[in-house]
C-alpha cells in the first residue's frame, strides 16, 4: 500500500500546484527590494541577473567572482550569474523575451547584436557609453556592430580576428618568406603546390559557411565593401571596382592560379583545418584557436613548431589588410526592471580593468589600444593584434546572417564564376540584387 500513498501524495501535490498556481500565486524568487541603509551604497539589497555563454572554467569563475565582488563594493548590489550553453543561446533568449523572464545583462556574440536589436530585445545605451570616459577609449572602428542607426546597443567586451595560418616547416624548407603583397602570396602558394604535390592546396579557398571571413580581407584591402546603409535602406556595393578587384583575386586563386583544388569549392574553415591536419594545406584564413585543434587532430604530427600565423597583406604591401572583426559583447536586456543598475554593471564589466581581463583570460583580444599594443609584443599574437587594429565588420543588418550563410549569396556567386557559368561582372550584379533584397526585406 506504500505505493498508493506515494501516488496519492504526489498526485495531490501536483493537482494542488496546478490549481494554486493557476490562481496566480507566484512562487518565483522575487528578491525583496531592500531599502538602502542611510549610509550604505545606493543600490544595496538589489540583485541583477547576468547571463554568460558557455561553460565556466576556473578562470572564468574567478573572473566573475572578482567582478561581482567589485560590483557589490561599488553599488552595494548583488549580481547572480547564470551560464547558458553556447549552442542553445538563441532558444534561451527567445524564450526569455516571450516569457519576460530574461536577464538584466547578457553576453552576446557581436554578430548577433543587430538581429536582436531588430527584435527590440536590447536597450539603447548610447548615453551610457558616450558618458563614460573609459568606454570612449575603445576605438571607434570597433563599435560598428554595436551601432545601429546611430544608436549604441552593446559594448564590445573582447575581440577576435582572423589571419593566415601557414605551414612554417614548408616555408622554411622551400625558402618562402611570409608574403607582404598579393603577388607574393600567389607565388608562395604556387611554390607549395609545385613542391608538395598537386593534391595540396597552396592557399585553401573557403567557399563554405564562413567563406566571407576569408573573402572580406581581399575586398576591404582593395577599398571595397559589401553594402552600406544609405537614406534608410541598404545599398549593395558588390559591383563597385574595389569589391570586384578583391572578388576577382579570390576566385582566381582557384580559376587562374590553381592554388586550391576545384573539387573543394564548398569547404569551410573546419573542413580546411581537417585537411591541414592531414598535411594537405599550405595556407588558409582562420583564427588562433585552430592551432590547438589541428595539433589534436593530427595526433601531434603537426604541432606548434610547424605552424605559424601572418597577417593577410594589403595588395601593395602597405601593411595588414583589414580582416573580419569578431568578438563578444555585453548588453542590457530591454526588459530589465533596473536599467540604471544594469548600466553600472555594464560600465564596470567592459571598463578597462575588467574588459581587458575578460579578453585576455578568455583567449580574446583586448579592445583598449594600450592593452592591445602590449599584447602585440608577443610574436605569436602580433599577426592578430596588427590585423585587429584595422579590423572591420560585416553589414550590421539583422538579415546579414541570411545572406551570409543561409542563402550563401557570395559563395554561390564565386562558384558560378569559377565553374565558368558567369563572368565576374554578371555574377556580382546578380549577387548584388539578391543581397539588396535580403538586407531590405
Amino acid at each position, binding site marked *: 500500500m506504500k505505493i498508493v500513498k506515494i501516488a496519492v501524495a504526489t*498526485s*495531490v501535490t501536483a493537482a494542488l500546484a496546478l490549481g494554486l498556481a493557476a490562481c496566480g500565486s507566484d512562487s518565483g524568487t522575487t528578491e525583496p527590494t531592500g531599502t538602502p541603509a542611510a549610509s550604505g551604497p545606493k543600490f544595496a539589497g538589489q540583485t541583477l541577473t547576468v547571463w554568460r555563454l558557455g561553460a565556466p572554467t576556473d578562470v572564468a569563475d574567478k573572473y566573475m567572482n572578482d567582478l561581482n565582488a567589485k560590483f557589490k563594493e561599488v553599488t552595494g548590489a548583488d549580481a547572480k550569474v547564470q551560464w547558458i550553453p553556447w549552442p542553445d543561446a538563441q532558444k534561451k533568449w527567445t524564450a526569455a523575451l516571450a516569457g519576460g*523572464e530574461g536577464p538584466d545583462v547578457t553576453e552576446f556574440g557581436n554578430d*548577433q547584436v543587430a*538581429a536582436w536589436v531588430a*527584435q527590440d*530585445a536590447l536597450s539603447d545605451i548610447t548615453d551610457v557609453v558616450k558618458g563614460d570616459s573609459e568606454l570612449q577609449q575603445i576605438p571607434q572602428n570597433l563599435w560598428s556592430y554595436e551601432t545601429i542607426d546611430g544608436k549604441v546597443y552593446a559594448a564590445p567586451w573582447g575581440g577576435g580576428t582572423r589571419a593566415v595560418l601557414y605551414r612554417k616547416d614548408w616555408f622554411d624548407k622551400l625558402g618562402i618568406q611570409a608574403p607582404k603583397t598579393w603577388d607574393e602570396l600567389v607565388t608562395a602558394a604556387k611554390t607549395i603546390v609545385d613542391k608538395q604535390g598537386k593534391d595540396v592546396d597552396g592557399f585553401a579557398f573557403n567557399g563554405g559557411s564562413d567563406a566571407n571571413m576569408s573573402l572580406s580581407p581581399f575586398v576591404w584591402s582593395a577599398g571595397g565593401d559589401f553594402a552600406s546603409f544609405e537614406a534608410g535602406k541598404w545599398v549593395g556595393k558588390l559591383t563597385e571596382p574595389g569589391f570586384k578587384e578583391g572578388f576577382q583575386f579570390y576566385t582566381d586563386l582557384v580559376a587562374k592560379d590553381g592554388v586550391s583544388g576545384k573539387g573543394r569549392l564548398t569547404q569551410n574553415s573546419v573542413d580546411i583545418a581537417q585537411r591541414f591536419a592531414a598535411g594537405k594545406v599550405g595556407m588558409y584564413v582562420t583564427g588562433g584557436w585552430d592551432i590547438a585543434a589541428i595539433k589534436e587532430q593530427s595526433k601531434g604530427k603537426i604541432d606548434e613548431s610547424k605552424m605559424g600565423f601572418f597577417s593577410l597583406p594589403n595588395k601593395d604591401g602597405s601593411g595588414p589588410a583589414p580582416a573580419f572583426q569578431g568578438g563578444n559583447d555585453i548588453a542590457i536586456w530591454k526588459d530589465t526592471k533596473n536599467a540604471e543598475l544594469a548600466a553600472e554593471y555594464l560600465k564596470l564589466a567592459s571598463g578597462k580593468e575588467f574588459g581587458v581581463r575578460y579578453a585576455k583570460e578568455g583567449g580574446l583580444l583586448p579592445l583598449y589600444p594600450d592593452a592591445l599594443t602590449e599584447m602585440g609584443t608577443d610574436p605569436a599574437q602580433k599577426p592578430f593584434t596588427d590585423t585587429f587594429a584595422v579590423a572591420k565588420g560585416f553589414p550590421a543588418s*539583422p538579415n546579414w546572417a541570411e545572406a551570409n550563410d543561409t542563402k550563401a549569396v557570395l559563395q554561390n556567386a564565386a562558384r558560378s564564376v569559377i565553374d565558368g557559368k558567369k563572368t565576374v561582372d554578371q555574377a556580382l550584379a546578380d549577387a548584388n540584387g539578391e543581397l539588396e533584397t535580403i538586407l531590405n526585406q
Partner: protein
Amino acid sequence: MAQTSTVARGGGDPSAPARRHSPRPRRRTGLPNWLVPYVLLLPGLLVIAALLLYPLYQMVDMSFHQVGLRQIRAINPTPAEFVGLDNYNSIFESDLFWTSLRNTVVFAVVTVALTLLLGTLVGLLLNKLGPKMSTFVVVGIMAAWATPPTAQAVVWKWLFDSDAGVVNWTLNLLPDWLSNLVFGRSDWSGQPWFNDTITLYLVLIVAVVWASFPFIAVSVLAGLKSIPSELYEAARMDGATAMSTFRKITFPLLKPVFSVLVVLSTIWDFKVFTQLYLLAGGTVNRDAFNLSLWSYAEAFSSPPKMGLGAAIAVVLTGILLVITFVYVRNIIKTEDVR
C-alpha cells in the same frame, strides 16, 4: 470514518477529493455511475487542456499572423498583424514544401515498416527465449533505447564517418565479388554518407530504427505476457504450427496493441527532429529538411518567422490527420458502439 474512505478512494481517484465538491462517496453507492468516467478523466484532462490544448490553440492562431519576437514578447508586445492565409500560401508556393514533404513521407513509411517488423520479431523472440537469455537481450536493447539522442546521433555519425567509420571499414572487408554483386562497387574507402540527401536519410533510417525498435519489442512482449498461456497450451494440443498459432491467437489478441503502435510510430517518425538536426548539421542543408526541421528553421533562425513556422506545424498535423484518418474512423465506428 469518512476520512478512511477518502484515503481508500484516493488510490483509485487521487485528485478528486482535493478538487471536487460532489457528494461524499460511500462504498459502492457513492458516485453516480454516469459521473465516474468524468471523475477519472478529470486530472488528465486538466493537464492536457492547460499544457497542450491551449498552446495548440495559440499555435493555430499564430499561423494566421505575422509573428516575430516583437509580437510574442511578454513586456510591451507589438500587436501581431493578421495576414489571413499568407503564411499558408507561402508554404505551398515554396520549393522546400515538396522536398520536405517527400523526405518526411518516404522516411516515415520506410522507418515505420522496418521498426515494426524488427520490433515484433524481437518481441516474439524474447517471449520464446529462456528467462536468463531474455533478460540479457532485453537489457541490451534497453541500452540502445536509453542512449541520449545527442549521443545517438553523434555515434552514428562516427560509425558512418567516411575515413574512420566502422561501416566503410566493414564494407571493405566484404569479398569483392559479393560487394560488386550487391552494390556494384568494392572500394568503400572515403565513401561520404552525409553529403547526399539519400545516403543521409539512409543513415537516419538506420539510427531511428535502431533507437525505436526496442519500444516496439517491449510493448509486444508486454502484450504477449498478458495473453493467458492456456490458449497456447490448447493450440499445442491441437497440433497447431507456430505460424498458425501466431495467425490465430497471437495476432488477433495483439491487434489493438499493433494498431496503436503503428499509429504512434507513424506520428513519431513523421516528426523526427533531433537526430535529423544533428546528422544534417543544423539547418544549413535545405535539401535535407523534413517538415519539422523546416518549421523549426523558419521559427527560430534569424529572422524568426514564427507565424510561418506555426503554419508549417499546422500543415504537418493536418497531413498526419489525413494519414491516420482511416484509423481514427475505426475508433469512432467500432469502439464507441461496443
